[in-house]
């Protein structure tokens, strides 16, 4: 055992083991490895490994996430949330790409690859020029547009104080009207096999009383 803890269970983690698993990067740059990558290299890497889902310009394909665009849409009816329009910290992009992308083939990128891909995502969001090179040295100089767009959970002030009251039990409304119906949209999954079975059941239920009538 480790010898220091209360139970002496487990063993000391070795530096190589910690280095292998502790790869998270924080907004202040903690965890960022030495390295660099250009928009130009990033464009090639992105085209090879990312564009099939995220599009050549990081604009997204089908239902797959858009990584670029959507500037100024956060207060719209349908906000488009991308690295450029929504994400607060570049560290998150580096960290997430490095650890979890490409989807289905994660943890296959070198540090320099990740710098290059992140540089290309910045370029796709019109945040840097096409000759930009991102490195551990200039990383913190990049500020994302929505860096100040987040507030810490304020429900205690904006909601709980209002809704911690004895609720109405009688005569709570003058009238009640249905204003929306889910069946109008008709997007709930139905099951084909079950539907066929249900049709059989319906027939049986309808004919049964006839058959059993005295």
């Amino acid at each position, binding site marked *: 055992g480790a010898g220091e803890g209360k139970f002496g269970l487990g*063993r000391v983690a070795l530096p190589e083991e910690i280095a292998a698993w*502790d790869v998270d990067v*924080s907004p202040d740059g903690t965890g960022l490895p030495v390295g660099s990558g250009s928009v130009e290299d990033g464009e090639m890497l992105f085209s090879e490994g990312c564009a099939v889902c995220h599009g050549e310009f990081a604009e997204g394909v089908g239902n797959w996430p858009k990584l670029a665009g959507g500037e100024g849409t956060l207060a719209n009816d349908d906000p488009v*949330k991308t*690295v450029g329009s929504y*994400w607060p910290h570049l560290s998150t992009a580096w960290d997430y790409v490095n650890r979890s992308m490409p989807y289905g083939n994660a943890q296959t990128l070198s540090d320099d690859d990740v710098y290059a891909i992140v540089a290309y995502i910045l370029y796709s969001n019109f945040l840097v020029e096409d000759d930009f090179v991102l490195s551990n040295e200039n990383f913190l100089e990049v500020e994302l547009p929505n860096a100040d767009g987040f507030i810490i959970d304020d429900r205690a002030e904006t909601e709980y104080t209002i809704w911690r009251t004895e609720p109405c*039990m009688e005569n709570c409304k003058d009238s009640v009207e*249905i204003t929306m*119906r889910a069946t109008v949209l008709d997007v709930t999954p139905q099951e084909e096999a079950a539907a066929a079975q249900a049709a059989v059941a319906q027939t049986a239920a309808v004919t049964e009383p006839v058959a059993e009538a005295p």
Partner: protein
Amino acid sequence: MSDMLKPSRRAFLRGSAAAAAGLTAAGAARANVPDPLITEVQDWAMSFGDGVDASPYGLPIQYESDVVRRNVEWLTADTTSSINFTPIHALDGTITPQGCAFERHHSGAIELRKEDYRLMINGLVDTPLVFSYADLERFPRENHVYFCECAANTGMEWAGAQLNGAQFTHGMIHNMEYTGVSLRTLLTEAGLEAAGDLSDKWVYVEGADASSNGRSIPMDKALDDVLVAFKANGEALRKEHGYPVRLVVPGWEGNMWVKWIRRIEVTANAVESREETSKYTDTLEDGTSRKWTWVMDAKSVITSPSPQAPITHGSGPLVITGLAWSGHGAITRVDVSKDGGKTWETARLAKPGEKMALTRFYLDTEWNGEDMLIQSRAMDETGYVQPTKHQLREVRGENSIYHNNCIQTWHIMPNGEAENVEVS
């Protein structure tokens, strides 16, 4: 006759009320003639059933085949980063059977043997440690029942009534009895002297899967009631629920219940990972967004009758039942309305509410066969009253995606069918 055992499925899928009418007529007809199920000796009363060697680990009987997880294809781009739904419309009590308890993965349900499992604790600790699965079983254990609700549960309903069934509108939830080691015990084993003042420290937790699902948790919570769990409802965790070890974070959004947990790092600051910046942040009407909305507020839903569980028995005695829960503590009361919120009756709790766990409620009532707009409204021990969707929208707008704990309305029609609706 097996069809008679599945009224809810049949009624959910049929297009008209003809089947329900036929069923009622058949029952009435039988009242006047001897029932052959009684007067004729049935097969099962004469011959053998299955031997005890037939199913070493059993599954539900075939007639319950509709009590299954369902997914909604159009919700996500791929099933490996997606969600499915617990069939809460068909369950009762509070414990969710693991086999139909919802799943949410970000890179699929991975297979991780106990022999291959490692848990690392590092960062601002006195001694960074590695535990094997066997090590974890040697620490003192605790047992607790808690709900795990996805932050996005009911999220598709923000802009209107969309999916027709409690399973789809409220089924990103399960409630299990967990066995595990308190996170406090494991952090103490690594030693927290090196962390100094603990009040401003964090733990960053991540899974062994490709998505990692890393999340930051403030130290106060980590030392309070977080569990590193390896059993649920008496047996090992299911693969899709984090086998062999997951984090249990009572009352807090499901995303933080990191599955296949491989590393716990004590940090000076929040990592602000993808799952707490791009996702699991809640955009308000003015375009700013809340972050770190960890707690799941008090919520409830009537599970029956509901669109997938219509009334098939005609008028007369009716059991209205559902679930209530709160991330702030115990449920103390649930009110039910049958007229869209004009008047309310206080329902009966099957058992006193338990902290951060599902609570079953019943309203034993009479149905006269007329339209009803049924709703439930939960209250928790902090005095918080579950809000309407209008109240939530007033504060947040319609683009929060997460944390929709609004009062749900089902429209019960004279034929007993039910529909997901919004009311004024």
